[in-house]
């Protein structure tokens, strides 16, 4: 049988995002010119989004192994051992360009996609977190994107019964025309029942189930995700539309199929649809696969074979089962009304063969599709002049310490996220022991059915990454993002188990972007090695450049830790009047590149101060131990806005004021508002804090109590009532009328 020949040429290849050299290589691998089906499939699998051709070499430098790693990079999601035979799977992924084009569906399907990655390995999704970046909220476009993206995340997560337990959002001008929407999901499952995606068993059946296939999202991976966004909005048709109800059924069906041991392997259909799922399954198992597109249930008539193969219609899964299990598999998919259909066979050909009925419409070596995409070396070069304009000043030059505090609290990057997170169900599944704004990390009990006084084993999870700090210093900024996550975990008493990352950068073919990417990955690697928190999975999103230049380089870090007893999980709010307040840890406040410098309109510094990773790890360990021992009343990591903003946040979360006397200072603004990793605001009995001071640097500065925050520093005294603090902190409320 010969392959259907229609002859697209190099022009079509270019339009699909391939270079002339890549097209030539495809011709060489096939021994002939590819037809339309083949060219479409190659263009997607060889896109940056699927092949990681500009980042794969760099990613190879990251630490990925450790005693607790159950599943590392390369699977649908990574997983770590949490004891009792259980594993927690997690991963963060981007959905930036779809969200910039259509924020509601873009964000919603971002959540849907990351959830499928989790249950594809046999873990039940138990939490979602999101990481968002927009332009300044005084821009109508940014407010629109924020409003719709938040609604989309809520729509999907709330409807599918997975709690959204945390997240973060930053507003910075470089994201104005290229917003970021990253979603992270966690799942839990028995280690012995986790499945990999590799197809196996010659003659086994390939079954597609879930939604029917339409023309939505065709070319999303190559056209949207692997090129810069232009001003045109013609890309809207490449955004998929999500259906959380369909996914809810898909989730329950997938987990039942796996629980009953009916499957050999399972894979979700994400970017590049059936093309990438089938090819990756076949590649993983070292087998071939025959697919008959005429058997694929369609929602639109007369779809071409290439359209069926590359459609990114949402809520679909692909599985492999033994022939004598097929009837059982179909019965389960019928129960959940996700019509399973056998569409292909595992073969020993080593080829991906696409049929339309009896007609062979595509025939490609699996290895050529998946492994032979050329990998590119980056050509990094540090920029010789600043890449980013200074932020617009919003703080009057004469603002005093009190004015600066209130301005920081109502700054978009610091103000309360309550108007956002109240749109998310953070409770469903009955695991959530620490909700948003109660603690620095979400805490989830492992066994919600436990009804005894025994310790409640739990995991904690957090996500973070300040692009402005990375823009100032890609290496140290990335280190700070990893440290921030570990500090958040320490504040609830959790020890890191593993890390996931989403690397959101501009066009890597530009030397200065390549430099940002290279330096940031080096920083993440060094920090994760120092913390022994290996990277178990992640995602890369490049070409994040809108009409006004590149985004801030934004590595988003998600980290999962464990704690022995959720009942002892730390909280960030002051909890007891009369408790002593202290600053603890290895903290060296520095104003440049921080939030106050942004409000003042200062240009980004060229570099951030270095840190001693070992000392900061030790400080985190000391805080963690004190929290676990129940010695502290509160623990909060010092982040944006510095020490005094952290104190104010502890006041607001606990509904208690504090009186601080910080003594002499040669630079009060630096001491109160300077930023840097490794610092904590803690409160507790004076004796407990003095004991903690034996294990990490610690200075007691004041006392919890009253209904105002009163500060004395360098002979100057100022105060703000809790109501004043709360009003300032509520500044995002009007964005959601």
């Amino acid at each position, binding site marked *: 049988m010969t392959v259907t020949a229609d002859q697209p040429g190099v022009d079509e290849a270019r339009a699909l995002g391939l270079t002339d050299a890549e097209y030539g290589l495809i011709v060489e691998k096939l021994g002939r010119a590819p037809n339309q089906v083949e060219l479409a499939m190659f263009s997607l699998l060889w896109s940056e989004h699927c092949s990681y051709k500009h980042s794969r070499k760099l990613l190879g430098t990251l630490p990925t192994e450790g005693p607790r790693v159950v599943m590392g990079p390369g699977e649908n999601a990574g997983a770590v051992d949490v004891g009792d035979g259980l594993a927690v799977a997690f991963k963060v992924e981007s959905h930036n360009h779809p969200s910039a084009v259509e924020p509601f569906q873009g964000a919603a399907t971002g959540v849907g996609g990351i959830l499928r990655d989790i249950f594809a390995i046999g873990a039940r999704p138990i939490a979602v977190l999101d990481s968002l970046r927009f332009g300044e909220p005084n821009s109508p476009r940014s407010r629109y994107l924020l409003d719709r993206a938040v609604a989309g995340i809520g729509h999907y997560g709330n409807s599918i019964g997975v709690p959204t337990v945390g997240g973060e959002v930053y507003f910075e001008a470089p994201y104005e025309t290229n917003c970021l929407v990253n979603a992270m999901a966690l799942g839990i499952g028995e280690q012995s029942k986790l499945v990999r995606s590799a197809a196996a068993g010659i003659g086994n059946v390939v079954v597609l189930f879930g939604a029917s296939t339409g023309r939505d999202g065709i070319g999303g991976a190559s056209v949207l995700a692997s090129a810069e966004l232009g001003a045109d909005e013609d890309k809207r048709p490449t955004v998929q539309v999500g259906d959380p109800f369909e996914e809810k059924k898909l989730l329950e069906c997938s987990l039942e199929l796996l629980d009953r041991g009916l499957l050999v392997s399972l894979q979700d259909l994400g970017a590049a649809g059936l093309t990438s799922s089938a090819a990756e399954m076949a590649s993983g198992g070292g087998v071939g696969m025959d697919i008959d597109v005429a058997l694929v249930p369609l929602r639109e008539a007369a779809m071409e074979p290439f359209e069926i193969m590359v459609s990114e219609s949402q809520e679909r899964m692909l599985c492999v089962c033994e022939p004598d299990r097929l009837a059982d598999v179909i019965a389960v998919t019928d129960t959940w009304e996700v019509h399973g259909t056998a569409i292909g066979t595992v073969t020993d050909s080593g080829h991906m063969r696409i049929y339309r009925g009896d007609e062979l419409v595509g025939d490609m070596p699996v290895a050529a599709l998946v492994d032979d995409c050329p990998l590119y070396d980056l050509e990094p070069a540090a920029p010789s002049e600043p890449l980013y304009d200074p932020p617009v000043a919003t703080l009057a030059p004469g603002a005093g310490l009190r004015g600066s505090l209130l301005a920081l609290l109502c700054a978009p990057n610091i103000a309360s996220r309550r108007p956002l997170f109240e749109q998310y169900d953070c*409770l469903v599944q009955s695991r959530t022991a620490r909700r948003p704004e109660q603690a620095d990390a979400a805490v989830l009990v492992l066994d919600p059915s436990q009804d005894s006084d025994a310790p409640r084993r739990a995991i904690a999870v957090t996500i973070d990454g300040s692009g402005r700090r990375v823009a100032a210093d890609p290496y140290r900024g990335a280190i700070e993002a990893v440290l921030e996550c570990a500090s958040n975990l320490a504040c609830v008493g959790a020890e890191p188990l593993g890390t996931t990352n989403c690397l959101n950068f501009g066009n890597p073919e530009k030397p200065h972007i390549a430099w940002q990417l290279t330096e940031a990955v080096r920083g993440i690697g060094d920090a994760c090695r120092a913390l022994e928190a290996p990277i178990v999975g992640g995602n890369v999103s490049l070409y994040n450049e809108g009409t006004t230049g590149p985004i801030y380089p934004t590595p988003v870090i998600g980290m999962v830790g464990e704690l022995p007893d959720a009942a002892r999980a730390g909280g960030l709010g002051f909890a007891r009047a009369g408790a002593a307040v202290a600053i603890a840890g290895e903290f060296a406040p520095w104003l440049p590149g921080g939030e106050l410098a942004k409000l003042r309109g200062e240009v980004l510094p060229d570099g951030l101060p270095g840190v001693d990773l070992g000392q900061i790890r030790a400080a985190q360990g000391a805080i963690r131990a004190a929290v676990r021992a129940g010695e502290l009343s509160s623990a909060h990591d010092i982040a944006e806005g510095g020490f005094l903003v952290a104190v104010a946040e502890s006041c607001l979360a606990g509904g208690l004021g504090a009186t601080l006397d910080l003594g002499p200072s040669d630079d009060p603004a630096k001491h109160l508002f300077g930023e840097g990793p490794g610092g904590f605001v803690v409160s507790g009995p004076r004796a407990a804090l003095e004991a903690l001071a034996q294990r990490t640097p610690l200075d007691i500065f004041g006392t919890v109590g009253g209904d105002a925050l009163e500060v004395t520093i360098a002979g100057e005294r100022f105060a703000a009532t809790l109501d004043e603090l709360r009003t300032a902190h509520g500044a995002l409320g009007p964005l959601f009328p």
Partner: protein
Amino acid sequence: MTVGVVRFPGSCDETDAVLAAARVGDARLLWHADPDLHGVDAVVIPGGFSYGDYLRVGAIARFAPVMESVARFAGGGGLVLGICNGFQVLCEAGLLPGALLPNAGLRFVCRQVDVEVVNTGTPFTGACARGDVLSIPVKHTTGRFHAPDGVLERLEAHDQIVLRYAPGCNPNGSERDIAGVMNEAGNVVGLMPHPEHAVDALTGSADGLALFESMRDHVARAVAA
């Protein structure tokens, strides 16, 4: 007591409801397509998005095979508790008065709220004292209770308002701060707050446990009688 929790495709809080009921008795799931209630002593219609709720909330679920059996069960005096989507389904099924409309703010809202126990004479609130304030979360987009004035007057007159949002806590614009109502016979109750998410202080509050304990006590008394 065995509590049956109905599971529709698209239900989200059914497992939480089973866990909560299991703290006071036995609990099992009931499948939407199976009209057999398997001899349970009480039925919970849980929260979530039954069949996706792409039409009007609860509008499709009322036609599920299991709902015919639930209606018969309720007609015979069986205890039925609808929570959130379950409340919406019971209103659509005509087992409870009124309707749930989109929140006044038109957004999903997830928030811990204080609710006041208005009527302690129900099988679901017998373990509470009148005026008790319970801390229970809400999470919904369509939770604004509405009924014509005449119906509201009748609900007040017949003590059919079971829970009200405490002053300042109404999250959705419900008329007269109504958070939960019962039918005239008193055996069917619908709530927008989620008592099944308030059964453990570690996850926020244990105040909702009183409703499940009330059910257990009522069933025990009925069996004893």
